[in-house]
């Protein structure tokens, strides 16, 4: 089955995510962070942050509500049962702290077939309430046996 390239260039609506202090702590504990700036408000303030700061990879948490509808969009046509996460890149901007509202917008940048596999590359941009970029993501999903 050929890859449907019609959706290349499609953008999905921005989705806002409000960053909670306990969500940062939960994430930091799950990935084994020990730096107190991710766990303790006083330590974060002392280090010059506005509040407890999210580890860089917390971007996957605040991006997820925006990325889900893009990956699941029938117009893109990804067979989820055969999908694997092939690659991931992030470029970070402003730090994200508890209380921030981060807005993420995805778009489909590429869809192509190679060696019998489908490659779907989504780009995302996340910004804080001041309009400053917090992260730019490149999400590569591979679908086997297209």
């Amino acid at each position, binding site marked *: 089955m050929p890859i449907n390239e019609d959706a290349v260039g499609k953008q999905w609506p921005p989705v806002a995510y409000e960053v909670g202090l306990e*969500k940062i702590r*939960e*994430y930091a*504990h*799950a*990935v*084994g*962070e*020990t*730096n107190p*700036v*991710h766990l303790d408000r006083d330590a974060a303030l002392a*280090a010059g942050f506005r509040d407890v*700061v999210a*580890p*860089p*990879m917390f971007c*996957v*948490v605040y991006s*997820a509500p925006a990325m889900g509808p893009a990956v699941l969009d029938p117009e893109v046509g990804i067979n989820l*049962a055969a999908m*694997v*996460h*092939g*690659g*991931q*890149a*992030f*470029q*970070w901007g402003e*730090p994200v702290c508890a209380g921030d509202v981060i807005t993420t917008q995805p778009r489909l940048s590429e869809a192509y077939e190679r060696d019998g596999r489908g490659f779907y590359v989504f780009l995302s941009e996340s910004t804080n309430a001041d309009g400053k970029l917090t992260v730019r993501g*490149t999400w590569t999903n591979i679908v086997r046996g297209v």
Partner: protein
Amino acid sequence: MADLGDLKQGDSLPELRVTPDKYLPHRYAGASGDFNPIHIDPEFAKAVGLPGNILHGLYSMAQVARAHTDAAGDPRALRRLSVQFRGMGMPEQEILVTATVKEADDGRVVTETEAVQGDNRIIRNAEAELSLG
């Protein structure tokens, strides 16, 4: 805190070792919102041809990120990270993250980095950039 300015091409960052316990994928699922059953249900995972429930790739990527932010002593130092996911990561096996400096100038450091479990390279062809200021 490591002084990034002292790092030279060919230097290694301190390695990171972590052994995710049996229930780590469940905690990461809750923390991240990714409840794909291949990560949390061993029977489902086996039914779709996997050896067992596998680690989330983004958890393993977070370990590569942590090796770099711990080395720098500051989460703001990590400017970019790109990875490819290949071998599947498994709970209850030690992950080793290594990183070697391939470019260094003026407090900006680019590393080649990977994460392995024994002979299984779960994250490869990865590159990170650290910068202070």
